[in-house]
């Protein structure tokens, strides 16, 4: 039998459960104590991205911003400016208040004169009421999508698969959120899209393996717990090539977006990278073991009934 020589994911499930729970708890702790690093989409205020076309350094950026603060042009509080872009030629500053066009122009001009260059800008302004609404919508979206996916999987497979899948999927979504909380990465609308497509990809992976388990179940006579472990493990190994190859392909796509894509979708691509990796991981290491735990109960109850 194949399973004798191969690594048993099911038998070692507790290790992986522990790893996942640990990451989730650390994420939760960070979130409770430090909160998420929300972008303007969810927090209201104005976000300005300036591309100067010349290399910038932090000291000078701080100097410009302080100058604007002391001469009274700028009254809003703002978060630490982040410098990025291909040659450190892009700076992103988030303001707590909604800035008027006048103030935005003053900031742009200050950078233009200091660096004596033409400055291009991208400005996002979100009103507080709208920001709250967007956040609520995000929570609704995840909730509704999860329930519907659960219903579909229950109809097509069975409820145990649905429960195992949904736990693993919420785990993936949570891992992405946790990683962003731990590393203080900015959470904005594209991030939300990334979390939601993570759910999509993750369910893909789970369905491929579950489909194989379902197929193998039809030709198997499960007598002992060992049989069930072997069946689940074989199913994982039989779909391993597909799982690895698919995640490689989509990681290639997301990785290219992250490395070569424009500044504004870098964070989106990063969220996707984390989500895809977590999705592939949880499909192999978590979801099947969860299903096994649920199925084991029915096996033992059947045995009792027979006895």
């Amino acid at each position, binding site marked *: 039998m194949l399973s004798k020589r191969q690594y048993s994911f099911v038998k070692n499930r507790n290790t992986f459960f522990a790893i996942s729970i640990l990451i989730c708890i650390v994420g939760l702790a960070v979130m409770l104590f430090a909160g998420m690093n929300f972008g303007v989409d969810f927090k209201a205020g104005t976000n300005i991205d300036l591309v100067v076309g010349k290399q910038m350094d932090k000291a000078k950026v701080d100097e410009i911003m302080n100058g604007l603060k002391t001469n009274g042009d700028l009254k809003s509080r703002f978060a630490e400016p982040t410098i990025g872009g291909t040659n450190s030629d892009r700076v992103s500053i988030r303001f707590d208040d909604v800035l008027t066009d006048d103030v935005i122009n003053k900031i742009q001009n200050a950078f233009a004169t200091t660096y004596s260059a033409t400055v291009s800008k991208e*400005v996002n302004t979100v009103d507080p009421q*709208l920001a709250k609404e967007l956040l609520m*919508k995000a929570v609704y979206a995840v909730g509704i999508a999860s329930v519907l*996916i659960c219903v579909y999987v229950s109809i097509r497979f069975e409820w145990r698969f649905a429960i195992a899948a949904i736990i693993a999927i919420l785990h993936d979504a949570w891992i992405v959120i946790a990683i962003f909380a731990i590393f203080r990465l900015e959470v904005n609308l594209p991030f939300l899209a990334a979390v939601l497509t993570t759910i999509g990809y993750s369910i893909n992976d789970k*369905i*491929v393996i579950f489909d194989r388990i379902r197929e193998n179940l039809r030709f198997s006579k499960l007598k002992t717990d060992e049989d069930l472990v072997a069946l689940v493990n074989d199913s994982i190994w039989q779909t391993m090539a597909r799982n690895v190859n698919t995640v490689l392909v989509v990681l290639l796509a997301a990785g290219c977006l992250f490395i070569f894509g*424009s*500044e504004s979708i870098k964070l989106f691509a990063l969220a996707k990278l984390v989500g895809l990796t977590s999705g592939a991981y949880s499909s192999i290491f978590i979801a099947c073991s969860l299903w096994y735990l649920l199925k084991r109960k029915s096996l033992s109850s059947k045995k009792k009934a027979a006895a």
Partner: protein
Amino acid sequence: MLDWKRISFFFLTVIVVLGCIGATSPKLVERIKLGLDLKGGFEILYTAEPLTAGQPLTKETLTQAADSLAKRADSLGVAEPEVSTEGTDRIRVRLAGVQNEEEVRSLMSKPAVLTFRGPDGTVYLNGTDFVENAAKLSYDPNTKQPIVEIKLKDRQKFKDVTTKLTGSTLSIYLDDQLQSSAAVNYPIDSDSAIISQTNVNEATKTVKLINLGAMPLKLTEKYIQRVDATLGTASLHQTARAGLIASILIFLFMVIYYRVPGLVAAFTLITYIWVLLAVFDFMNATLTLPGIAALVLGAGMAVDANIITYERIREEIRAGKSVLSALKAGSKHSFRTIMDANVTNLIAGIVLYYVGNGAIRGFAVITMMSIIISILTNVILSRWLLHLIIRGNLLKKPSYFGVKEADIRAL
């Protein structure tokens, strides 16, 4: 024995499709409408309120306000302004490729609400009571001062108002600025009124503002996104390059790992992107940055369909089946998996579309489109092409599928 009919059919299909793609792509790419994040411009989300508190906000007036915004954008020479209403009290305006940003923005956000108010500030007549595009510059015959003439739709209504205000004053406001105030000495039975102005410049501006269409609602900006043209173009180039590099890497991976079927997958992936862009152009939809991201990720999903099928076929070959029966069994078994996976993703896409707003919606639309198109290209077309070459006996050896002879078990 080679079956030349099937083989030539295979090559004919590939050549014709590639020919079509080659011939139409440059034009297609040029024609795709780009969003403001890819070529500069701005997006504003307004919430609308009735001009006077307590007035109901109807779908009709909201649409009127949206039309008026579109007209303003048009008058400023903005190509294809996108103005849409959202929910019960929102209007979203997207203007891409705007050159004179400052001017456009100040005019867009200026509601230009023309009102006639009584001495206590009560609004008696508002924008909807005036004839559209009828304001004109003229001069007072006595004082030679510039004046703006406006026309009322309902002569009787004006008469009623002035009857009521006889002995009092009637003030004309543009937005919240007092333009002129006049004593009403007797009911005016006329359909025109005048606003006195201090100079010709001022008068011309007022005429323009009024003629742009009086805004029937008060609008407040809730969300603004502004992208400079140079930044947008840079985003487009970088992201397009990222997509190209990703495609090449995926092609290489597929061909090295899956050999001949990998080539078929690469071909169907090109077809997938082309069909997606063509449908996009046909729908006259706007391509945005999240849209490109969805396209690139959709390509990953499309290839996943190929991978699931090929892995299944390889498994069947390893189990000792002939290439043809492995294809049949593999296609059959993998189809259900692919459909289940795609339907769940479609569910996620639909939820995103209904719950999400602007940018997220663009993402959701491309996700849904790419799921449907990838089933056509990377499942059905890909399967049909493989059938042709396998039945044509061109692809008999397991090594064409990247399967080693040693791994094949006897049945």
